[in-house]
């Protein structure tokens, strides 16, 4: 037990310096990571979902990292994550501002699937963000969110212990850094899957097919009653109020794969609604929705390494001019 407590000493002096958030991150990690950004005036903050985070790619292969290498005089921080959505972007921005972090530029993706009320991130915050940014979740916002209940005695006790035992607070982050995945169990499962050949068979059997995305995109007209849209507008208004320049792009989407579901006037109309609403609030918005070939995708909206490089190429001139 004493050894476990002693392990806290190096953790106290540790500062996260990763170029993007880990796949699994704790509230403690996010808190500390954002703290480490305070006082900088060269921050280009990326907010968004797994498409921007770099699903199934190493950090070096992501568009954010490619841009980081090319943009001199700016520190690119990728605060996007799997499960991101407009409401997550809004709360993350509030959290950054409350912590005294003022980005020089915010870059975010707008993914049309997140305006579907059945999307898991439609009204749900990533748990770590919900915990870390709890004071920033104003009552009006809380009312529309699907908040996880953390009042059970086990949750309360766990949070209490996290306050003074850092090794426990950062357990999720440490597990990921040690095993390269969620935990020891996932690492073992991957190893066994490689040994038996199951992982390869699974990959071959689960090549994305259109029917896997049935119901992912909602083509009914987007209006103010849509929670994601309403929060996107609040987010854009907040950026304008804080005078933080922002650049948005409509997430590249695999139209060849999703032809049956999204190649329709209703879908285009919804994208136009999103783009106009953002432009009206001073957010320059680039339409990259149908700009990438099918070969640039892993599935419906996640780009390959080459696709990410292409995305970086497209964004670079706009970012360079925005930072000028």
């Amino acid at each position: 037990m004493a050894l476990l407590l002693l392990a806290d000493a190096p953790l106290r002096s540790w500062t996260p310096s990763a170029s993007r958030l880990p796949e699994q991150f704790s509230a403690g990690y996010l808190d500390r990571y954002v703290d480490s950004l305070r006082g900088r005036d060269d921050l280009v903050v990326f907010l968004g979902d797994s498409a921007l985070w770099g699903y199934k790619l190493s950090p070096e292969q992501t568009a954010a990292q490619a841009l980081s290498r090319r943009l001199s005089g700016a520190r690119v921080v990728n605060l996007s994550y799997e499960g991101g959505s407009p409401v997550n972007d809004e709360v993350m921005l509030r959290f950054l501002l409350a912590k005294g972090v003022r980005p020089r530029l915010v870059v975010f993706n707008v993914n049309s699937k997140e305006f579907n009320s059945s999307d898991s991130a439609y009204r749900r915050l990533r748990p770590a963000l919900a915990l870390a940014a709890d004071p920033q979740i104003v009552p009006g916002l809380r009312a529309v969110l699907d908040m996880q209940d953390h009042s059970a005695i086990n949750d309360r006790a766990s949070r209490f212990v996290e306050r003074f035992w850092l090794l426990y607070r950062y357990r999720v982050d440490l597990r990921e850094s040690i095993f390269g995945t969620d935990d020891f169990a996932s690492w073992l499962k991957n190893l066994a899957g490689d040994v038996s050949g199951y992982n390869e068979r699974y990959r071959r059997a689960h090549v994305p097919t259109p029917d896997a995305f049935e119901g992912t995109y909602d083509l009914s007209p987007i209006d103010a009653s849509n929670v994601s849209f309403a929060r996107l507008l609040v987010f854009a208004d907040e950026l304008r109020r804080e005078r933080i320049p922002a650049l948005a792009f409509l997430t590249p989407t695999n139209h060849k794969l999703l032809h049956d579901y999204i190649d329709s006037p209703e879908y285009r109309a919804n994208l136009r609604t999103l783009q106009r609403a953002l432009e009206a609030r001073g957010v320059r918005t680039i339409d990259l929705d149908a700009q990438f070939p099918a070969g640039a995708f892993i599935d419906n909206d996640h780009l390959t390494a080459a696709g990410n490089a292409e995305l970086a190429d497209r964004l670079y001139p706009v970012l360079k001019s925005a930072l000028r």
Partner: protein
Amino acid sequence: MIFNTWQFALFAIPFFLTYWLLPRQYRNLTLVAGGIVFYSASGVAYTLLIVGLAAATFFIGRAMANLPKERTRDRRGLLTLGVLLSVGALALFKYANLFVGSVNAIVPKAHLGALNWVVPLALSFFTFEFIHFLVDVYLGKIESVGARSFSEFALFFPTLVAGPIKRYQNFEPQSKNIERPHSLVVAANVYRVILGLAKKMIIADSMTPLTQPLLTPDPLYNHADYWIGMLAYTAKIYFDFTGYSDIAIGLAGLMGFSILENFDRPYWSRNISEFWRRWHISLSSWIRDYAFIPLGGSRQGNARTLLNLTAVMAIAGLWHGAAWHFVGWGLWHGAGLGAHRVWERSPAGARTAKLAGARWPSTALTFLFVAFGWVLFCCPTFDAAWKTFKELLGAHAF
């Protein structure tokens, strides 16, 4: 309440402080109160069940102990009543739905309704302890029956969830003289608790995803996946169960009690009889004393012995869970024990036992027999188990 939760930590810290800081005369009271609080976390209604059943068992046991030995008929009547109460509670809460489901499957027109009751936490463990108590009072192995000692025995929270199944004769003398353990003993028991938590949370829980082939059918799984699944389950159940036992024994030690060991490196056994002397020792000795021996044990010829072995192992299987595949697992072991008994008495068996190099092959064979048995334990249906067996043996094409 489960040991590897913060809820338990919140209970245990004030409990141990109260237990050791209060004057000695309050320790027993603290122990009983602690047991009630611990058990109530899983439902107050079920606390009434365990307290009620414990009270009934105690009064029946005391009435039996107070009757003269010559009044055999009255004593036997009390024993029957007490055992029926425990078995009845077990049957009602744990096995009623199995009965209903089986009747509906055999007679589809019966349309019996399921009870859908939650099985009270640790019901199987405390009913077995109560039956042991009543039988031993009847046999005269327990002579003095005190309310204080019995209430501590019944509500002793470290062993409440997953055993070991205690014996009253071992427990009672310790409860009468609870001494503060030496600091080295405290350290050893804290280590035991941490070891148990590590076994459960790091090793056993990490094996769970690997056991999926046994639980969820997927045509993508092949021969190797099933072998990994079976071996992972073999490891998982061992580390899970020994982990709980380590925590229970460590906690008991911190309360000044010494509880019998429940495992003795069972996967190193040379034969299946030895395995059952080293696996879940408190259950196997209970089965031996209160089921196998009363049925005649091995004193009534080979055929009857084999029948007894099969019957008691089927009961042991059913004790583990209210489903027929658990009975199948028990019968698998019953068949193994029977086959071993026949083999060790045969000339070939006697010769093999003397061979110097027989140790490792027999240990490996026993391990494989046990591991294959876990397939019946783990798979939710016989069909799933049969499919798994075929995959394991490379006979899936047939």
